[in-house]
């Protein structure tokens, strides 16, 4: 059958984009219909865009939850301005008088983490970019299993729906933190935890199917000549990420099943003998192990960090190489480091558990592996940094975000070292220091890289560029406010402010112990106000991005197939790529970053450009 060339940007009439109703009526040609094209599509590009729009929406939602929490932290018990009455209307008693009750704060906290990690960043970094870009980059017509790909998205969608529905059940959403530690998760009187677990099983299933698909695609569908060491680093990053998802997620699925049994069938997998709830001995058989949950959770939880960061590094490598107009520095070091990180990420998990009393000897082992895993991470960052040396740098929006990623991820990574050592972690554990640390890795780190990716691949998806001016506004405002949000948290944490306090530490700071230093000095409390308003400004700074994203679909500057003059295969397709991607199967003859090759007419040599014949070589 003849491939159907899409003339519109695929998500112009997309399902999750408001206003698709009226566009629908204009559809005249019989095949493929609206449902096949945008909802039940098996095209990796449409699925990538579905994932992208959905995860961006979830990130916005997760951010909004955080804003409400920041208000509660800065002004405990004071009704939320503007949104307070709405909250009370929707959620009822937990948001009485428009103020956020401690229970509601807990569920917002748990859901903020869950949504940002499992419904926001991972689907955007891995599923959205991975789906759209990976097959293009390796010269494949689609993913290896297109129907499975569609199923992954639909299961993901279901998982998201289950998570959202849990806000509206009696008792509200899960409240035991995104880590859902037992026995807390089994004793809070709400079914939100069961919803959370069912939702997680859906999300994990979706990730597994996706991971199988990605690995099979990268192994099987590379175009002729696309050898392993000719793959762009982005593809390598996705490859390693897929393996981490494939092997680290199932133990969490196992843990989820066990906790679901605890919550629904009243077993005692994670509930110890003698557990008292509300001052009474719980009616359980006991004999379970709370530590077991933590082991199973963090067996996923830590590799998950590299699921969040590796695709981001892949995007940054592409953007940096393209905009410095020179090959990425140390390509092989990057690849081997990524592989090493992937492998080692499976044996560092218990550095999250130094305070559980699991034993000094075990802690020593995990301290060692944790220190070792920082080496390849530093190699990757160093390679990206050194790539800038001697380049003729184009400072466009994607490049700004990629450059922003480097120091932000650097701060996030280096502040992690004291947390990897048991002695210092005993003090810093569960304080705002750790909140600042991992947000530096993920928020100004990964999310900046994802923004870079959105600005970078937008012209391929739509055939138009996003506004450069508003892109810069978006970058500089985000960069500034992001730092004002997270930098003070280091100070707060070092001063001893604990996380998960719904009053932002008011009660704690009022405590006076004779002969001891005051629990929390007033300056630490004042920083809560600073962070709140910086977060509000950070939210406002995203408005130009949202408008730019949708406005540029129809009004951006039109560009040709390869506006960034890039070398990789994704830019050698028609724009937007038709179903089946390539008009003719590409033949790869060189590595991915042949920029500024001496003797070549242009400063970039696409991977698929035929090599000059040896006889005519000069």
């Amino acid at each position, binding site marked *: 059958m003849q491939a159907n060339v899409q003339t519109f940007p695929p998500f112009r009439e997309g399902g999750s984009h408001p206003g698709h109703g009226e566009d629908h009526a204009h559809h005249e040609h019989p095949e493929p219909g609206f449902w096949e094209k945008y909802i039940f599509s098996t095209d990796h590009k449409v699925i990538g865009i579905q994932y992208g729009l959905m995860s961006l929406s979830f990130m916005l939602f997760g951010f909004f939850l955080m804003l409400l929490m920041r208000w509660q932290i800065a002004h405990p018990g004071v009704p939320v301005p503007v949104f307070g009455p709405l909250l009370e209307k929707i959620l009822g008693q937990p948001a009485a008088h428009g103020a956020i009750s401690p229970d509601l704060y807990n569920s917002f906290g748990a859901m903020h983490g869950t949504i940002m990690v499992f419904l926001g960043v991972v689907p955007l970094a891995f599923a959205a970019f991975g789906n759209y870009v990976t097959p293009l980059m390796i010269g494949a017509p689609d993913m290896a299993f297109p129907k499975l790909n569609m199923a992954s998205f639909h299961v993901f969608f279901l998982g998201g729906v289950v998570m959202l529905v849990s806000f509206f059940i009696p008792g509200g959403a899960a409240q035991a933190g995104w880590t859902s530690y037992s026995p807390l998760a089994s004793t809070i009187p709400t079914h939100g935890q069961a919803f959370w677990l069912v939702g997680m099983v859906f999300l994990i299933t979706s990730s597994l199917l996706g991971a199988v*698909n990605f690995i*099979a695609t990268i192994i*099987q569908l590379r175009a002729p000549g696309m050898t392993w060491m000719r793959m762009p680093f982005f593809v390598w990053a996705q490859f390693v990420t897929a393996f981490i998802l494939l*092997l680290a997620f199932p133990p969490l699925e196992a843990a989820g099943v066990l906790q679901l049994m605890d919550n629904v069938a009243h*077993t005692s997998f994670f509930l110890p003998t003698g557990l008292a709830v509300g001052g009474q001995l719980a009616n359980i058989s006991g*004999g379970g192990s709370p530590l077991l949950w933590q082991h199973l959770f963090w067996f996923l939880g830590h590799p998950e960090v590299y699921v969040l960061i590796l695709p981001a590094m892949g995007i940054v490598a592409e953007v940096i190489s393209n905009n410095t107009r020179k090959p990425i520095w140390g390509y092989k070091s990057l690849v081997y480091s990524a592989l090493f990180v992937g492998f080692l990420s499976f044996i560092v998990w218990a550095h999250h558990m130094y305070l559980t009393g699991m034993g000094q000897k075990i802690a020593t082992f995990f301290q060692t592996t944790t220190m070792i895993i920082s080496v390849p991470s530093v190699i990757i960052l160093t390679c990206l940094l050194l790539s800038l040396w001697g380049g003729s740098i184009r400072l466009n929006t994607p490049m700004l975000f990629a450059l922003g990623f480097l120091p932000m991820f650097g701060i996030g990574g280096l502040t992690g070292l004291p947390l990897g050592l048991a002695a210092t972690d005993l003090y810093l554990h569960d304080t705002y220091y750790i909140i600042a640390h991992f947000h530096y890795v993920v928020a100004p780190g990964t999310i900046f890289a994802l923004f870079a990716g959105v600005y970078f691949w937008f012209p391929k998806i739509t055939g138009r560029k996003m506004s450069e001016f508003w892109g810069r506004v978006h970058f500089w405002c985000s960069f500034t406010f992001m730092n004002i949000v997270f930098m003070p948290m280091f100070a707060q944490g070092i001063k001893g402010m604990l996380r998960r306090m719904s009053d932002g530490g008011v009660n704690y700071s009022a405590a006076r112990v004779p002969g001891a230093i005051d629990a929390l000095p007033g300056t630490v409390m004042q920083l809560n106000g600073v962070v709140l308003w910086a977060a509000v400004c950070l939210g406002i700074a995203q408005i130009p991005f949202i408008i730019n994203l949708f406005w540029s679909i129809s009004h951006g500057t039109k560009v040709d197939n390869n506006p960034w003059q890039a070398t990789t295969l994704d830019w050698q397709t028609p724009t937007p790529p038709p179903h*089946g991607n390539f008009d003719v199967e590409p033949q790869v003859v060189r590595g991915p970053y042949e920029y500024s090759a001496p003797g070549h007419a242009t400063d970039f040599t696409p991977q698929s450009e035929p090599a000059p014949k040896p006889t005519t070589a000069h």
Partner: protein
Amino acid sequence: MEIPYTVQNRPDTGVYNAKIGIWLFLASEMMLFGGLFSAYVLLRVGADEGMWPHGWLNVKLGAINTLLLALSAITTLLAWAACKVREFGKFKFFHACTILLAVTFLGIKSYEYRDKLLHYEVQLTNGKVADGHFVEESKDFDLAKKTGTVTLHGHTVDDRKELMDLRAPAAQAAKLEEMTIAAADIKKMENYGPRHSTFTAIYFTLTGLHALHILGGTLVIFYFWGPGSKMWKTDPERFTNRIEVSGLFWHFVDLVWIFLFPVLYLT
């Protein structure tokens, strides 16, 4: 462009797409059951001295089920081999056997579950423990109101610990008989369902998840045996691949049982 290597092997990797897909999927399954078996180990070594049960499961039924699955592994292999040599009739016969064996396995499993769910441990107000299978209850039997009686087929022991090792000579020698207990004498009555103890919890979870895998595998094989076998006429090679891939899954599920049987039944 069409997706390549859906049927033929890619020369440099030596496999077709679905085969690599199923092996990756099985790797993740390995981690899933690996996580659960690790949980089993941790819970068992963490159990109180003398409180991990032995001999609670019917070894004969377990052994029969093991045999059934081992046979089904052979018929699955023969079904695939029949496809390879293009003998469709033999394929139909062997996979019919596979499906029958799988359904019998599930039947026996359900019987075992039923047996556990009808088995009650009753803590009496006098400190003794009555243990046995449910026979009948009087019409006005109500634990909360303490009215009526319940009849169990079993025996009474002084201490719960005596119920832990049913392989011990004392437990083997116990005489089982019908006994009628008044609700007023009952402190707590609970069947051997998942919430009874850590052992029944992990038993139901592990075998339940395994049974779901058996059910899923049977449905897939049934589809290829029935409506899906139309493909034989149009694309026998692709069909053979499907039988191979579903067979790989089936062998994995069998293998899980090969571990479950000794871990749960024999130790």
